C-alpha cells in the first residue's frame, strides 16, 4: 500500500525526490502518511480534493484485497 501511494504521489508532483510515505500499522487500521514538498501539496490534493479522494479510493481497494483497512493522511 505504501508503494502504491508513493508511486502515485511521485508521478503527480514536481519534486518527486521530496515525496515520502510512512506506513503506520495499527490494530485494525493502517495509516499511510504522505508528505510532499509544500509547493506540491495542491498536486496531491487536487481541485476540491479530487486527487486525494481518488488516491483514497484506490488505497481502499488495495487494502480490501489484503483484508485490511487503510486511511491516507496527507501531512503538511
Amino acid at each position: 500500500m505504501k508503494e502504491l501511494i508513493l508511486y502515485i504521489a511521485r508521478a503527480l508532483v514536481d519534486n518527486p525526490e521530496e515525496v515520502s510515505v510512512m506506513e503506520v500499522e495499527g490494530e485494525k487500521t493502517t495509516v499511510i502518511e504522505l508528505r510532499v514538498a509544500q509547493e506540491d501539496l495542491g498536486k496531491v490534493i487536487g481541485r476540491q480534493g479530487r486527487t486525494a479522494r481518488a488516491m483514497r479510493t484506490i488505497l481502499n481497494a488495495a487494502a480490501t484485497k489484503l483484508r485490511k483497512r487503510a486511511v491516507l493522511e496527507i501531512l503538511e
Partner: protein
Amino acid sequence: MDWIEEEGKSIDEAIERALSRLRARREEVVVEVLEENRPLLGFFGSANVRIRVGRTPTTSAVQRAVEILEALLQRMGVNGTAQGQEENGTVSLKILSSDGGLLIGRHGETIDALQYLVNRIVNRRAVGGERTRVVIDTAEYRERRIERLQSLARKAAQEVKSSGKAVTLAPMSSWDRRVIHLSLKNDRFVETFSTGDGDHRQVMIALLRRREEAAPELPNP
C-alpha cells in the same frame, strides 16, 4: 529531437539548469557535453562546461497509459494486464483481471478513480490543447454504463417532450455528463446543459423552443 544548450560550473549544475528549463526529469533527456574547460593547474580560473540537452522522443500515449495503469494495478496487489488502443486522441484501456468487481468498486468509484489518476499522470506536463483523454474499462463495465446512461437520457428527454418541463438529472461526473450530452445531441426537440459546481454538476434537459429563440447549436466550423 530539439536540443537546448546550457552552461554551468560543473556538468551536474548545467544539467540541473537544463532540466528546470525543459521541466523534464533526468531520465527523460539525453545529455551531450560540448565543451569542458578544466581550471588550469586546478586553481587558475573556474571550470566551465557547455552541454546540450534533448528530450528523448516520448513513447506513445497508449504505451505510457498502459505502463502507468499496470504499475498501479501491480501496486494495488491486483493481478491484471492492460491493453490499449488510441482513436481520435482518446486512449481506451481495457483491464483483463480476475479482480473485476474489486476494480470497479461501488458505483464504479474505483475504476473512476483509476481513470482519473491515469489521466492526471499521463497529462502531467500537457499544456493547452495537447491533453490525451484516457478511458479505462474492465469487464465491459463502462459499456454497460454507457447503455444505462443513454437509456436514462432517452427517458428523461421523453418526459421533457411530454410535459414541456425541463428535467434535471442527479449530479454526475463529467464523463457521465458527456455521455448524456452526446446521446441527446441529435435530438431536435431538446437541448442539454450542465449546471451547478464541482461535484454537484448536473445535466439539465429542456425543450428546445422555436429555432430563433433557441441557443444556436454550433457545430465547430
